[in-house]
């Protein structure tokens, strides 16, 4: 039987999202499809899968991403679905611990990729918001206000990701 749950996770909460998906799997709900705010689950053996999310460098259909996903598949990782460049992976828990990254550098690299997604979006929201609020005669001012608010949401996201990054960087002074 399939079950659909609607839930909002911001992109900078990807680790919380992973944790939630693992909790769902622990209850016997296994993610089988993802959409925007939408998670579709299949019922199965409790705790069968653990999950990881990754923002890929390219779109999932890009040859480089295809090669990467294939490499992961050879190690027992399955791709469940994707939203834009965000990909949802899972691995059977009986096949051992599931991590995409095992050193600090590759974790930092992934966070940098997320920052490089947020920073342009933040700028775009602020620019469009400012144009709408102050310079546009035709467009509704509330549209511009929403743009600016979204800009601040991205500022917050950048802050959260950057905090994670700084923590890792400190650790890297001592460890790899």
């Amino acid at each position: 039987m399939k079950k659909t749950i609607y839930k909002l996770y911001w992109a900078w909460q990807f680790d919380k999202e992973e944790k939630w998906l693992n909790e769902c799997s622990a209850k016997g709900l296994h993610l089988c499809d993802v959409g925007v705010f939408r998670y579709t689950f299949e019922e199965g053996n409790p705790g069968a899968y653990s999950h990881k999310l990754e923002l890929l460098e390219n779109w999932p259909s890009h040859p480089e991403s295809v090669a990467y996903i294939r490499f992961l598949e050879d190690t027992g990782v399955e791709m469940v679905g994707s939203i834009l460049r965000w990909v949802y992976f899972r691995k059977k828990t009986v096949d051992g611990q599931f991590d995409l990254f095992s050193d600090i550098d590759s974790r930092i690299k992934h966070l940098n990729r997320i920052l490089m997604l947020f920073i342009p979006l933040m700028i775009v929201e602020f620019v469009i918001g400012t144009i709408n609020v102050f310079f546009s005669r035709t467009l509704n001012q509330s549209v511009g206000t929403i743009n600016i608010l979204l800009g601040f949401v991205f500022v917050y996201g950048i802050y959260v990701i950057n905090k994670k990054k700084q923590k890792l960087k400190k650790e890297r002074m001592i460890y790899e």
Partner: protein
Amino acid sequence: MSDLTSGALTEAVYYILLSLIEPCHGYGIMQHVEKLSNGRVRLAAGTLYGAINSLLEKNWVKALDNPSDSRKKDYQITDLGYRALNSEINRLKELYNNGLSIIKENKYEENNL
């Protein structure tokens, strides 16, 4: 070849190079490294993929065609990679010997372990 003697290799790169003395595919490297380190080092697939690509770029390893399965790529160490591995082993030897001799001199071992 100053880049061969300078700097420390990461633990991942060191163990990947050691695993590729014989041709091996990605998952095989992960298993080999885990076995070699008695389960201490678990390479994650994403990190391994990034490291292999960097090593390919540096020409320290090369990709081989796998005759039994065209999808699974095998990799193997190159001469350049072999030299880097050797100089790393020498570096580790120095670290190990220095550590051991200083610890022994101070009798730290007997008092605190």
